[in-house]
């Protein structure tokens, strides 16, 4: 992500770049953002995502090698 004023260039994956309005979030270069209709509406923290998943696995008593 590259920020320029209220607009940022966001990488949607596989090289798809689009200008997105980032005035509604505190985002800096390198952050992940959730984009809706051309507006970033929230930043997404990868560390948070992994921690949550780890927590769910703990609650579910899930072992990594289970079921695979």
């Amino acid at each position: 992500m590259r920020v320029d004023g209220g607009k940022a260039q966001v990488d949607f994956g596989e090289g798809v770049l689009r200008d997105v309005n980032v005035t509604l979030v505190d985002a800096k270069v390198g952050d992940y953002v959730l984009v809706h209709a051309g507006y970033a509406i929230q930043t997404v923290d990868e560390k948070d995502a992994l921690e949550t998943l780890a927590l769910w696995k703990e609650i579910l008593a899930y072992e990594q090698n289970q079921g695979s």
Partner: protein
Amino acid sequence: MAEKLRYRDPALAKHIAKKIGEVAPKDETVKFCHVCGTHEWTITHYGLRSLLPANVEVIAGPGCPVCIVPAAEIDEAVQLAKKGVVITCFGDVLRVPGSHMSLLEAKAEGADVRIVYGVSDAVEMAKQGPDKEFVFSAVGFETTAPSTAVEALGNPPKNFSFLVSHRLIPPAMELLLGVGDLNISGFIAPGHVSAIIGMKPYELFPRVYRMPTVVAGFEPIDVLMSIYMLLKQLSEGAARLENEYPRVVKWEGNPKALEVMERAFAVTGGNWRGIGRLPDSALKLRDELVAYDAREKYGVHVEQGKDILLGCECHLVIIGKIKPNECPMFMKACTPAKPVGACMVSSEGTCRVWAKTAAAQKVS
């Protein structure tokens, strides 16, 4: 993003399904309701209902913002289009039936109707075409309303205005609890609406209605986990508000977005297609911004439209009373190529989601 794949991990999904089986009640049916077209997509696309015990049902409530726009508000857009105003809208809005015609039909008759990716593109078009009048059809729940607010507060050009059709989700959830024989046992609350409004607006569901409520994300693991969390609450005889989606949803939501919405909009009563009028469920531009309110600017006010065509059962699909395949028109008179009702038009409509998935299953 690597964790995206982890939230689709089939082995973990199977494990959650097993846990769901363990914690689900043995002798009674439970019914959970979500209110988001994207949740319905995840559930249908990944076949999540097939992983649940027969007595655990998940139904789709009014979660498609395009489907619930009343015909009267489409009629207003059509009237403006016919007057020569350029109507800009999201792609899904184009084919939504009005009382007499959709915007697509108006376009076929020569009106200037243009699809935009977002409201900022519409504003840009107005700046590029100062000799024409532009109106943006502002459809969407709390996820979309902040973008309309930012543009409305950002001094748009004089030839630009909004036809605001924004609606709010919590009042619709409250309505569902009043539908006598729906018998909902818990809510799966919409993650992206909640990214904006946060957790607080849902507090009344556990507190006042003793209704377990879990805010959930949109990957298959998110949805399964939320169902597990709801069942766990039921097994404990508890009713709590929980957040399955903390990587996006914070307790306070998005304060910047809420602040711009508050500055731009007043909350008012609004009509919902197939449902009727719900108090405090719609947004309108504040008096200071009346110059940008297309209804006032052009004097278009359609009070009552024809929401549901004869034979169409969108009104029952929208509140989760029936499944799409229980409508006699589903995939017969009403298909994605020739939709009759709004639920078949939008990619977030329950009928459309079911139609697309059923078609994909047939091929494979």
